[in-house]
Structures are given as C-alpha cells and as structure tokens.
C-alpha cells in the first residue's frame, strides 16, 4: 500500500540520510587507506596517504552536512521527522533548539562524530610523522561512531538509529494511514523542561569534546606500539591528554553546576551512574597523564603509562555503553533507554578493548620496561603510587556502578547498595585523602634522588601547619560531626593546597614553567575542600517544627522533616528568615512562585530582604517539573525549591483571574466555607480568621460592564478595605436594583482567600449587609518547599576554574617542550 502523503518535506531527510551513509563510507575508506599508508613498504608511494586524507575531508564535510540537515529540520519544525517531533516544539526559543538538538541519543552521537572530525583535521595539520597510524585509529573510531547513526536494516537487525527517521515510520498509529496526517500534528513534544537551561546549551558540547579528545592519547599509544616508536609517543601525547582531561573535567563540572541550578535533588553531585560514567575515564586519564610524565622524566613505569592511556578510552566507550544501552534501568533515572543498540555498543567496546589487549600482548617482549628499581625518595615512585591509588578509586566506582552489568553478565540479581551515596562518599573520601597527601609531599621530592633530611623536614613542617589549618576549618564549619574519613580527606586537601602553594611561589620566582601543575593541583584540592564542606555540612533550613497534625507511626520513621508548607501571604519563621509565599508569576510555560525572605535583627528591623523565584513547569508531557532558585552569597548559598504545589495541568494555570461570572456561582460557593452575613454601617470593621475588613464608604456610581442602568435602577458599590496578614487589599462588591429585582455582584480577593458579597441594604437602620465567604484553610493557595544552606560552595566552583587555568598552563609547557617531527 503506497499512500502519497501530503505536506511532507522529504528532501532534508533524504539528503541527511545520504550524508550519513557517505560519512560512514568515507570513514571506512579513510581507515583502510591510512592503514595501508602506514604499513606499505614503499615509502615514496603517497597514493594511500592522499586517499586517506581526502576521504577524511569528505567525512568531515558529510558530518557537517548531517548536522545542517538536522538543524534545518528542527529549526523549521518539520514534525514529519520523529527527532524534531520528539525533542522540539514551536514555542522553543532558538537557543534551546540547540539543546533539543542533542537531547536525543542520535544528536549526541552526531556531536561526538563532529568533534572527532574536527580533532582529526587538527591531527592531519599537526601530527606530522604520526599522522598515518594515529589517523588510522581516529578513523576507525569514526567508523564505529557513524555506524551508530545509520539506522538501516542489515540481515534483519537494525544497525544504529538515524535522526532522519520519519514520524510515521517510527511510531505505529492508525493516523498514519491518512495521506493528510501532518495536518493533525500541530506541534512537537517539546524539550524536557529541565534541559531548558543555558547550561544545557554548552554542557553537552564540552563534555563530548572531552570524550572525543580522549581518542587522541589512545591513538598515539596504539601508534607508538604499532610503529615501535615506544618512547616517542608519550611526549607527543601528553599535551593532548592534558587537553582531554581539562575539557572533560570542565564538562563534568558544568553538568554538576547545571544539576545544582536546575535539578531538585538538592546538591551538586549525586554519584548517579551517569555522573560516574563520565568521571571514571576522567580519573583514569589523569592517572595516565601522571604516569606518562613519570616515564618521560625517569624512564620508569612504561607499561602502566601505556595501559592507563589505552584503558581510559576503552572506559569512555564502556561509559557510553552503560548510559546508552538501557542497562542501568533500575538504578538510574537519567540514563537513556535502549534504542536497540545494545549489542552495537557492546561491539564498540570490545573492538577497542581487543585492540588494547592485542597490541600489549603482541609487543610485550619489546616494551622498554625498566628493570631497575625506583628510588624510594624519588618523585617518580610516589607519583606512580598516587596514580595507582587514583586507579583504585576508579575501580571502586566501576565495580559499584556496574552492578547491573554484573547482573546481566552473570545472571545474578544483586541490588545496588541501599545507600550508594554514603558508600561512594566514604570510599572516595578515603582515596581522596591518600591521593591528595601524595599530591602534596611528592612536590617536595625530586626526580631520581632526593636529599632525605630536607625532604622530611619540609614535609613535616607542612603537615603540622596543615593539621592546624584543618583543625580550624573543621571547627568553624562543623565538619567534626561527620565521619572521621571526611576530616582526613579535608586534611589531605589542605595539605595539597599548602604544599603546592609553596611550589607555586617558588615557580613565580623563577621556575615559571613548573607553575602549571601546581596551579592545577591547588585547584583540584580547593575543589575538594569546597565539595567536602558544602556536601558535608549543608543544612536543611526548612526544618519543619510547626504544629502539623501528627500522623500515626510517623515519629518512628525518625526522618528529618525537610519540607515546610507555606500558605499564601502567611509568614513562617524558617531558621533566621521569615519567609512568605507572596504570589505567582507566569511566564509560559513556567510557573514562578515568589518566596519572600526577610531577616530581622534583634531590634526587629529588617536587615536583609530578597525574593527567590523557584519555578515549576506543569508540562503536559513531562508532568510537574520543578527547578530551584538560589541566593548566592560569597561564603554560602541559600537554595530553595518547590516540592509540591497545587498546580496540575497547563490549562489550570490561568492564575490571577478574578472572575465574577454568574453561571458558576453556585459551584463556586462550594470552594468556600459557609457564608457569614454581617450587618455593618460605614466605618465598621468585620473581623475574620485572618484579618479584618472595613467598610470605608459607598460608591454611588460603581463600574458595571455591559449593564445599562435606567432611571429607576440603583447600583451601589461597597468600598471595602481588607487587611490580611498585614497586607492591604481593596474590593468593591456591588448591589443593584434593576427593574424591581435586586442583584449583587460579588468580588473575590484570591490572595486573601475571600469572596465578598454586598448582599442587602437595610435602609431603616442605615446598615448594609456584607456576606463574607472564607476559603477553608486547605483549599487556599500554598506551596511546600525545601530550603538548603550550602556553605562555602564557592570553593568548589573556584577550585574548578583554578584547575582549568593550571591545565592550560601545563598544556603550553608540554607542547613547548615538544618538537614534533
């Protein structure tokens, strides 16, 4: 049955699909050509080499073309394409179109191939004699990555997942049998509200540039073993490895900042498998860089340097397998689901794992392994030990994160630890202590051999000073309430900062080229200091101590009651602050809750006043999604987010309507407690539960829309002043006699939870009847929120920035040392 569908734009999809096939083909051709260019005996024959380059150029062009086609589709809202329909919508602003671009797996794979293509071109330009073998490996990786996008059936199995698949092919539904189905698809699903954040525009590209650049040290290691240039590859690969570490680290922290700013788990690091998956290769590559430097300076630890470098990239692939294959199903809420690429991803990991193991075995006998013992008091030995511990910390992350993988492999049914975060924290703090300690005292050692007495004296002096500083920090921040291991980690971090500061001050006096590593180390140690204090001593400010109704069995649960409930305009004391939920503002599709914070001094004067606007988005597709708002101080952050609010769907969100329609009158009254009529004169006060109402005056000419008044008709407005929780409102209900019948028009004051009727005029007594409708407590507008205080979190962000600066300095130093041939 061939239906001709109306209104589809098939051109960009066909073009995109063509470029996908082309990019796969050219990557394959480039791999083969570079392979033969590397292995051929005739060194003068440049034909393979030229072909390799040419096909890589074409590959780059096709990758860019794929991106352009996809962008065209999303930008023009061509919802006949599944990708555009699933990840974008018409209301999305352009900069979020960019984030919707990589919300799906296909888009993020594209991003990865794109960066790999860019890096490949840089290598063609810079790598000189390394180009042929290195580009063989890079092209091979490009082959595997672009195969993820193919989306073509081969022998009954779909290979990869194409971003250009049509909606009608992706989903089965009766609607697609109609030729004009597109008319009914008005809009896409839109982007997950949590991803509508400016960090999501730049975090994925940075992270994927990091992942992509990890192929380069791997490729150099392979090239070194393959071409028997055992010693040379290390020096050439160090700057690239540093680059990868820097970018990936930045990307990871950006993700953490995004989580802190827009997710509501209340923190910046959660040891989620998805987070672990990107940290594992990062830590391994850091260890690799250190051992590479050891080898370069001392000739020791060749095997470890090579192994770790190779392993780091295999772990990148393993990480992408874990997050993309759906295997993490029951342990992570963030992982992608399976797009039918499970085995494809497994093959990807296995291919590169086989290359690693195969090469190491093949060249085992020739490896320049130093048989001589390292000196105990040498920098290389302790750098090596430190890296080994870094590796062990990764091992712990890998073993725990991979529990679902072990289950799948060994058909077991082990559940992850009940409290994984504590487990990770304790282990990683222990490793952090050891690693930072080494990071400190190794600075006092020299390569080859060190004068031991001097070393012991400086080490000890710095240890004592650090212990004092640490004691002070622990005392001030209250870290002593935590487990001992966190205090040890704090000591290590402080020691790391101080020892490296000494090196930095020396470097500034003369040996400036050594400054890079010192700066990076200081940054890393500060990052740890910030993380330890902020995560360890963060305090829930919104402790719930008010008289809530005790639910049976509740006390036994003994959990902290971390949420407080705020009725609109009723101030509640929360820690040092008096907080009030003062209203809402709607900037579609976000619903902002204005929470007013006031802090008073002893005399009762307001010393501080600010408003936070945490928001929720009641999204038809994603449900209620909340984002926090944070007040940043220099030394701490006050973080506030909404955990519950009575908003349900987008339709109900027309807040602030003060309707007075008669049709719904009877129904509307149900929202209030039984009415109470009061007979008052002008100037009288009516007291009610939350305040009082004063009848100020009568208005003989009230405004009435669409009701013409004739000679005998009378309309009178009662000018009322309402004071509820120290906030003034006014309302003017109207009483009317028209054609002999009396009517009245009630007015609502939603913020005060009141409806007021001017129900009768009693001329004999010169009194007026005002009927008061109060909203019952429970149907009044409220929010439930949680507020957390994160002390010293700025150390965490500042440490990151300092670390990146250190990496940049090191990259310059290492590439200057290098004369590429």
């Amino acid at each position, binding site marked *: 049955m061939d239906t001709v569908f109306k209104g589809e734009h098939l051109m960009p999809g066909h073009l995109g699909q063509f470029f996908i096939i082309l990019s796969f083909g050219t990557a394959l051709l480039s791999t083969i050509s570079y392979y033969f260019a590397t292995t051929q005996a005739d060194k003068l024959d440049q034909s393979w080499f030229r072909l390799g380059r040419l096909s890589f150029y074409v590959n780059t062009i096709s990758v860019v073309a794929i991106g352009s086609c996809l962008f065209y589709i999303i930008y023009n809202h061509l919802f006949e394409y599944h990708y555009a329909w*699933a990840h974008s919508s018409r209301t999305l602003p352009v900069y979020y179109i960019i984030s919707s671009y990589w919300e799906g797996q296909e888009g993020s794979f594209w991003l990865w191939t794109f960066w790999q293509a860019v890096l490949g071109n840089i290598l063609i330009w810079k790598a000189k004699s390394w180009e042929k073998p290195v580009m063989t490996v890079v092209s091979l990786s490009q082959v595997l990555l672009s195969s993820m996008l193919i989306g073509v059936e081969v022998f009954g199995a779909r290979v990869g997942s194409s971003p250009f698949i049509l909606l009608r092919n*992706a*989903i*089965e*539904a*009766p*609607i697609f049998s*109609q030729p004009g189905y597109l008319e*009914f*698809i008005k809009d896409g*699903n839109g982007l*997950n509200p949590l991803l509508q954040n400016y960090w999501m525009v730049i975090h994925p590209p940075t992270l994927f540039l990091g992942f992509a650049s990890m192929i380069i040290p791997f490729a150099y290691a392979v090239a070194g073993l393959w071409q028997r240039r055992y010693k040379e590859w290390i020096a050439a690969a160090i700057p690239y490895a540093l680059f990868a570490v820097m970018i990936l680290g930045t990307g990871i922290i950006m993700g953490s900042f995004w989580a802190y700013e827009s997710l509501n788990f209340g923190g910046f690091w959660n040891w989620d498998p998805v987070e672990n998956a990107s940290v594992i290769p990062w830590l391994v590559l850091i260890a690799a860089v250190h051992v590479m430097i050891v080898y370069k300076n001392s000739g020791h630890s060749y095997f470890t340097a090579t192994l770790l470098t190779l392993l780091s990239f295999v772990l990148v692939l393993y990480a992408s397998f874990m997050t993309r294959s759906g295997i993490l*199903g*029951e*342990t992570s*809420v963030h992982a992608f*689901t399976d797009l039918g690429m499970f085995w494809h991803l497994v093959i990807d990991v296995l291919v590169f794992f086989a290359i690693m193991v195969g090469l190491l075995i093949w060249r085992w006998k020739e490896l320049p392994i130093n048989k001589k*013992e*390292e000196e*105990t008091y040498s920098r290389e*030995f302790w750098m*090596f030990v430190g890296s*080994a511990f870094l*590796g*062990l910390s990764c*091992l*712990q992350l890998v*073993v725990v994160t991979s*529990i679902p993988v072990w289950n799948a492999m060994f058909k077991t*049914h*082990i*559940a*992850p*630890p*009940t*409290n994984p975060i504590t487990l990770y924290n304790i*282990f990683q703090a222990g490793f952090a202590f050891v690693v930072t300690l080494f990071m400190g005292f190794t600075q006092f050692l020299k390569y080859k051999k060190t004068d031991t007495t001097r070393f012991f004296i400086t080490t000890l002096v710095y240890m004592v000073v650090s212990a004092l500083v640490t004691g002070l920090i622990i005392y001030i921040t209250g870290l002593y309430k935590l487990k001992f291991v966190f205090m040890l980690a704090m000591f290590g971090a402080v020691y790391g900062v101080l020892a490296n500061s000494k090196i930095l001050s020396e470097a500034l006096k003369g040996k400036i080229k050594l400054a890079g590593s010192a700066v990076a180390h200081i940054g890393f140690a500060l990052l740890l200091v910030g993380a330890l204090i902020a995560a360890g001593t963060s305090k829930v400010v919104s402790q*719930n101590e008010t008289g*809530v*109704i005790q*639910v049976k*069995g*509740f006390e*036994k*649960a003994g*959990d902290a*009651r971390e*949420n*407080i*409930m705020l009725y609109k305009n009723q101030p509640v004391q929360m820690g040092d602050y008096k907080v009030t939920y003062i209203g809402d503002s709607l900037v579609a599709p976000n619903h902002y809750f204005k929470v007013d914070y006031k802090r008073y001094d002893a005399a009762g004067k307001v010393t501080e006043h600010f408003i936070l606007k945490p928001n929720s988005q009641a999204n038809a*597709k*994603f*449900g*209620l*999604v*909340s984002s926090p708002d944070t007040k940043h101080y220099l030394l701490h952050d006050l973080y506030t987010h909404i*955990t*519950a609010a009575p908003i349900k769907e987008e339709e109900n969100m027309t807040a602030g309507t003060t309707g007075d329609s008669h049709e719904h009158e009877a129904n509307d009254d149900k929202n209030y407690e039984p009415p109470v009529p009061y007979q008052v004169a002008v100037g009288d006060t009516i007291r009610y539960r939350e305040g009082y109402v004063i009848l100020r005056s009568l208005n003989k000419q009230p405004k009435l829309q669409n009701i013409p008044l004739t000679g005998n008709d009378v309309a009178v407005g009662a000018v009322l002043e309402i004071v509820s929780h120290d906030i003034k409102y006014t309302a003017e209900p109207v009483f009317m006699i028209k054609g002999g019948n009396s009517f009245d028009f009630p007015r609502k004051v939603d913020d005060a939870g009141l409806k007021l009727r001017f129900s009768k005029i009693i001329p004999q007594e010169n009194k007026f009847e005002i009927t008061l409708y109060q909203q019952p407590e*429970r149907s009044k507008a409220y929010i*439930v929120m949680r507020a957390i205080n994160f002390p010293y979190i700025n150390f965490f962000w500042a440490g990151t920035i300092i670390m990146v600066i250190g990496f940049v300095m090191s990259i310059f130093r290492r590439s200057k040392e290098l004369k590429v041939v």
Partner: protein
Amino acid sequence: MKKSSILGIVVIAIAIAVIISTYSNTSTYGSFHDAEKTQDELHIVGHLNKGKQLYYEPTKDANYFSFYMLDNKGEECKVVFTGTKPQDFERSEQIVLTGQMRGKEFHASKILMKCPSKYTQDKIETTEATATTKQANI
C-alpha cells in the same frame, strides 16, 4: 623484596577489599514478604496499586505520603514515605523502593520510579496520536 612487588601486593589487597566491601554493601531485591522477615533495608520492585487512594495532604503534613504498592509477587502493602509526593507519581509504571518494614507498613527511604512518558517517549506518543485521529473523524 622489590618495592614494586610490595606496592603491587598493597594495590591488589585494596582492590580485593573494595570488591568484598562492595559485595557486602549490596542489598537484595525482595518482596514485602521478605521485608517482614528482616530488619535490614532492602529494595522492592513493584507497581502502584492505582485502585487505591494515594494519601498526600500537604495542608495537614507536608512530609507524609502514603500509597499502596503491589510487589512483583502480587503482594500488596501500605507504603509510607517521609517527604513530599514525588512529582507525577500517579503516572509511574514501575517503582523501586528502598526501605524497611515497620509493623504493617513499609517505610521507604527512597523511591525511584519509572514514568513511561519521560523515558520511552514513543508509548505516550501513541496515545496522543490516537487522540488526534478522533479529531479527524469529526
């Protein structure tokens, strides 16, 4: 003995310690029946009993949420969670609880839920697509 061998032994020892401690820290997936017999925390996989009322009244207590869940063996139990109702809870397809039994109630310290809409988009999309078909018939 060479230093590197000592180091090797230390590293291997720590590695083994890590693996053993990981294994001893893992918990088990169980049922409510298992939970009754143990004092330890465990994971229970199941789904929400949509026929019974969810209880969350923030106006009374913002930190109390209870519901009825059926575990994978079909056994039903009341679950109490100290905290706010997770967003979109009604739409969950599968729930993984971590917690322990207290009397007749299961007190969950953590709730992980899978919503079909967020993670496998195509399912919810089908329902939306059929809704538009109805419109077409009119």
